[in-house]
């Protein structure tokens, strides 16, 4: 079945984000790019999403910040970041040199802060889009995350929509009863793209000392353990919204990426897998190309949401 090695076009344009391929590095797992410079040809990535940034610098949570779980890991890095001004001054110039689209992940602890961060980032040439992390505790509302209340989500996204002309990708929290209502709020408020999922809140205990294994008590679960949940959520949201979706959660190889695309993701992000296999993004990019070629599929777009579901059942 060998055929001529036709070049497959993996490029995508999702909600104004143009990328040479649909494989991005997820926020918080790829630093500011420079950390993986030696290990990954960063210019091959579809896009690079920075660690979440807020108005002022934050020092983050007390250690321990990590714990391995079966098929996953919990992280409680907290809000640690250098603040939006330092990002622009110290990190963006270096990031630019990779020639990879940069998407800045933003968050705030108040509505206002979200807006301000977005405004400061608006008009900076190297930045091709914003990813809005709505899984952050809302200080005004007693620490309940913005991302679990559809009305709050609408407000946050509207605020950012007004503050920025950049493509806006809203990153959804999986810690909700019905992710589709949150997704629709974000869509109505003007999101261009939805990305999901962020981590699921979890916990681990040191039974010898009877203390939490994380300094922050709870943390966010990522990795292959959460993939089934992430897939289900992408599929649910795909059936309810009309804007493109970016799939995230436990993607470790080409098959995992394909699962997300087939249930409805127009692109994907890789997080935890980088830690275990820094070549993972390159392997997935090649793997997607091979899959398209082997299956005579012209573009990624033709694969998005191509899941066939059984049409009959037996009582």
């Amino acid at each position, binding site marked *: 079945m060998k055929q001529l090695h036709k070049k497959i076009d993996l490029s995508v344009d999702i909600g104004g984000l143009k990328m040479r391929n649909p494989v991005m590095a997820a926020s*918080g*797992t*790829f*630093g500011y790019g420079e*950390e*993986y410079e*030696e*290990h990954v040809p960063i210019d091959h990535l579809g896009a690079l999403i920075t*660690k979440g940034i807020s108005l002022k610098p934050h*020092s*983050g949570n*007390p*250690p*321990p*910040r*990590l*714990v*391995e779980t*079966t*098929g*996953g*890991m919990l*992280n409680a*890095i907290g809000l*640690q970041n250098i603040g939006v001004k330092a990002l622009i001054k110290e990190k963006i110039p270096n990031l630019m040199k990779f020639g990879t689209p940069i998407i800045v992940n933003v968050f705030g602890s108040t509505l206002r802060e979200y807006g301000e961060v977005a405004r400061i980032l608006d008009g900076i040439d190297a930045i091709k889009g914003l990813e809005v992390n709505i899984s952050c505790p809302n200080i005004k509302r007693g620490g309940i995350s913005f991302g679990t209340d559809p009305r709050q989500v609408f407000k946050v996204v509207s605020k950012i929509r007004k503050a920025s002309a950049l493509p806006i990708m809203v990153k959804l929290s999986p810690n909700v009863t019905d992710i589709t209502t949150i997704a629709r709020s974000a869509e109505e408020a003007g999101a261009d793209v939805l990305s999901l999922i962020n981590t699921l809140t979890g916990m681990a205990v*040191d039974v010898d*000392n009877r*203390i939490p294994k994380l*300094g922050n008590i709870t943390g966010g679960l990522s*990795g*292959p353990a959460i993939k089934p949940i992430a897939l289900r959520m992408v599929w649910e949201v795909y059936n309810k919204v009309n804007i493109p979706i970016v799939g995230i959660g436990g993607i*470790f190889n080409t098959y995992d990426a394909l699962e997300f695309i087939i249930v409805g993701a127009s692109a994907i992000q890789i997080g*935890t897998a*980088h*830690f*275990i*296999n*820094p070549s993972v993004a390159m392997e997935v990019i090649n793997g997607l190309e091979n899959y398209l070629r082997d299956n005579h599929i012209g573009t990624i777009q033709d694969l998005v949401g191509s899941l066939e579901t059984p049409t009959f059942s037996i009582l």
Partner: protein
Amino acid sequence: MARVIFNRKISSDYYRMRILCPEIASRAKPGQFIMVRITELLDPLLRRPFGIHRLCHERDKHTDNNSPSCIEILYKIVGKGTIVLSEKKKGEGIDLMGPLGNGFYLEQNIETAVIVAGGIGVAPLFSLAQVLKGVKGKNTSRDKLTIFIGGENRKDILCLNDFKKIGARVVVSTIDGSLGTKGLVTDLLVNFLRKHSPLETKNLKLFGCGPLPMLRTLSEIAFYKNIPCQVSLESRMACGVGACQGCAVPTEINKEGDRVVLYQRACKEGPVFDSTIIFWDYKSILLKV
């Protein structure tokens, strides 16, 4: 891919593995570490960090090339990752990332050095001793390099003869007295320093690696005696390259006149830190790492 040259049990819980990895070995410095992928399957999931214990040449290839082709790690079985690692056989491929982190900072002329090791903390300190002893016959006097090795009992005292062979003076203590002096290794250090005049300790450098309480005491001793001291810290790691912020170590730095706490990455700014910048009061949490 790197390849296992040998993987030997050296005492009940300890293993020594030599790995052929010229690209890593030729660039490695004492105090740096590698991240080892334990399995191609997903349990255990994360890579595991190990200090570079020793730099050496593959046995059967005595080339003129001066740069080492192999590294060794010395490791203790503590959980499933190290158990699986101990089952690796000679000749098997092994997936490594490294050398990572900042090693020990070595000025040109270190006159006298004292190394303090607790338990498996001795692992990265042997490569340090190798370098401190210089290449060809330099610093051969035993007075120039002293190693204090402490442990629970005699089984935890590793590399004794290796240190002697390279011409270092070795002082041993165990909690149960089954080898060397009975007691804490830091108590021996205090005695040792008491015998030296401030003038004598002036050009002394301290290096340590081991359990956190030991390192804290070491740091206090160094502070009172005003001796420069570098410690290699452990921390839970995920990426090992500085990307995830997971391995944060609290440090105290001077900011506009105030001492403020700043988290630094053990994998990037560390694992070796100047002992004065570590925020030791944090130990109550750190101890549980």
